């Protein structure tokens, strides 16, 4: 039975469960960061629902270039919690060998590309990936997520230019959380973000990214457009950054006038209320799902904590496929006896 539209109860419950997992994970990371166990974190609180909607609509073959704030997207797409922790803890099971800051993921098995810190720099890569997929006659589209600040970057312009001129199947999704660190969207740009495709002939649409039903409905149109081979599409998902920009940020400096507890805007609360209203869940089941999520998050954390770090000298690997004499010499230097 569908909850709303095509959304079955099971799907809705799964979405909700992953939202809870993401939220619990986010809180866990923040506390681990405070204890000095995890180095840094960019919380995704307030943006879980749009991220989950993206994962719900994307196929396995679709290639996702997510950004640093997409925890919930990973969980909904099935990335095991253990793999996420391995990266956050930069332990020796981390596929990236501890090379990147927390939240800079790359899960090739799940068709997630690679996250970098320079804002927007993944965007031009998406068009190349889409070109490669089309050229090699592979199924699937490319999906890119990014923040409102990213729309100002040169990379955004470059990506939309190329996507349009070569008619490439890239679905650009801006998670407009209202802020680029301390800069509100109103100072980032004077135009509506979803209209920024107009200068390239790329259609756009704004969706309420805090609402699962609205997100799915809005995104569906965009996915259909891109899958049909018509070219790129730009979605602006309006969300809300409930917390600080990152664990290094203190929003009190710039967010003074605002109610910052976010309860009004909490997308998970919204989904919860809807499901309660529709009778899909009751408060007891919500309590138990929360407890389950927390239990899993805590347990897996303990489990992955015990994995040792990478060996220091691995820092010399992967600069090239085969290290040059320079890396070899420097490796010896590092290993030299005192």
């Amino acid at each position: 039975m569908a909850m709303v539209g095509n959304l079955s109860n099971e799907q809705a419950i799964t979405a909700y469960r992953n939202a809870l997992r993401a939220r619990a994970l986010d809180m866990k990371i923040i506390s681990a960061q405070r204890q000095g166990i995890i180095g840094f974190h960019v919380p995704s609180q307030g943006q879980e629902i749009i991220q989950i909607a993206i994962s719900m609509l994307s196929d396995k073959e679709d290639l996702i270039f997510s950004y640093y704030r997409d925890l919930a997207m990973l969980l909904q797409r099935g990335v095991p919690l253990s793999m996420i922790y391995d990266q956050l803890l930069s332990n020796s099971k981390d596929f990236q060998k501890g090379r990147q800051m927390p939240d800079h993921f790359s899960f090739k098995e799940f068709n997630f590309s690679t996250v970098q810190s320079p804002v927007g720099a993944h965007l031009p890569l998406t068009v190349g990936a889409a070109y490669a997929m089309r050229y090699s006659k592979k199924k699937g589209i490319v999906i890119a997520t990014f923040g409102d600040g990213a729309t100002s970057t040169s990379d955004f312009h470059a990506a939309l230019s190329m996507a349009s001129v070569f008619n490439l199947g890239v679905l650009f999704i801006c998670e407009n959380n209202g802020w680029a660190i301390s800069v509100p969207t109103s100072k980032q740009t004077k135009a509506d973000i979803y209209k920024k495709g107009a200068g390239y002939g790329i259609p756009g649409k704004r969706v309420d990214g805090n609402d699962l039903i609205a997100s799915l409905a809005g995104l569906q149109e965009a996915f259909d457009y891109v899958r049909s081979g018509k070219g790129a599409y730009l979605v602006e998902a309006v969300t809300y950054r409930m917390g600080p920009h990152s664990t290094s940020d203190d929003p009190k400096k710039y967010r003074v006038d605002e109610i910052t507890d976010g309860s009004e805007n909490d997308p998970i609360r919204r989904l919860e209320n809807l499901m309660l209203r529709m009778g899909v869940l009751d408060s007891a089941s919500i309590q138990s799902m929360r407890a389950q999520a927390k239990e899993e998050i805590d347990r897996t954390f303990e489990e992955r904590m015990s994995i040792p770090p990478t060996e220091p000298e691995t820092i010399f690997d992967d600069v090239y496929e085969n290290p040059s004499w320079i890396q070899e010499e420097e490796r010896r230097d590092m290993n030299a006896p005192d």
Partner: protein
Amino acid sequence: MVQSLNGSIDMLMAEDEKVIVMGEDVGRDGGVFRVTDNLLNKYGDERVLDTPLNELAIIGMATGMAMYGLKPIAEIQFQDYIFPAFDQIVNNIAKIRYRTGGRFSVPLIIRTPYGGGVRGGLYHSQSGEAYFAHTAGLTVVTPSNPYDARGLLVAASRRNDPVIFLEPKRLYRAGKTEVPDGLFEVEIGKAARLREGDELSIITYGSMVPTVMSTVEKNGLNADVLDLRTILPMDVDAIITTARKTGRVIIVHEAPRTLGVGAEISALIAERAVDSLLAPIIRVTGYDIPYPYSHEEFYLPDEKRIMRAVDRVIKY
């Protein structure tokens, strides 16, 4: 160093209304490292500009301001993020005076924190001074303490040419050098001799200065220590004088070795003081790899690596 810089910018703004501060999060937030704290309140949003997220736009706009009468101090939030503006820096600001036969100038300061040691991984740790120091038309400075931070910033603001002002972020809250009130200058192009010695010379700058000094002190080294302070143009006289004096030279910096600033220092000595050399010139530097998140303590030159080089040149 943060306080010294903040106070310096404040005084420069008070002194000259043509001084404009701009960059990402420099206003309300006061900069992610608080270097521009409180300036927005004091000088208003016509003089302190929170900009959109585009470094090319920041530097390009600041260049236009500088050509037409203002004195912008633009912040790039991390030096790692300056590269989107690299074309403007190399092809415009470094060349506008030249290409117009001196009829336009670009009195612009680009401030940016650089270097590692803050667990920032690949993209919050780079030391990119060499990318700029290869470009004639630019001036590149980096202070190693709060006093020089103020003196160099003031000297930069008195210039009529663009200055890349690199702030070693690891030292932002380190050390307690006294900084006199008011504005004063530290001459651009002049190194500081931090210590006199006869047995060897250690040439360094920026974030590595405290590491070098503590190594020298702890091990009681009889070393001449130079803090370059200006990377372009380097103080060739100071470099050659110390090389001639001791004949044993070690260069320490955090940036990767290959074509790092140490290469130029070494080459200047090999050109001008080769007869005085009693030992190889050793570079103790960051490794030629992207800056790793894990194990950065191995990446950064430390006492152990410096002492290995010292032993080598002394026993040579």
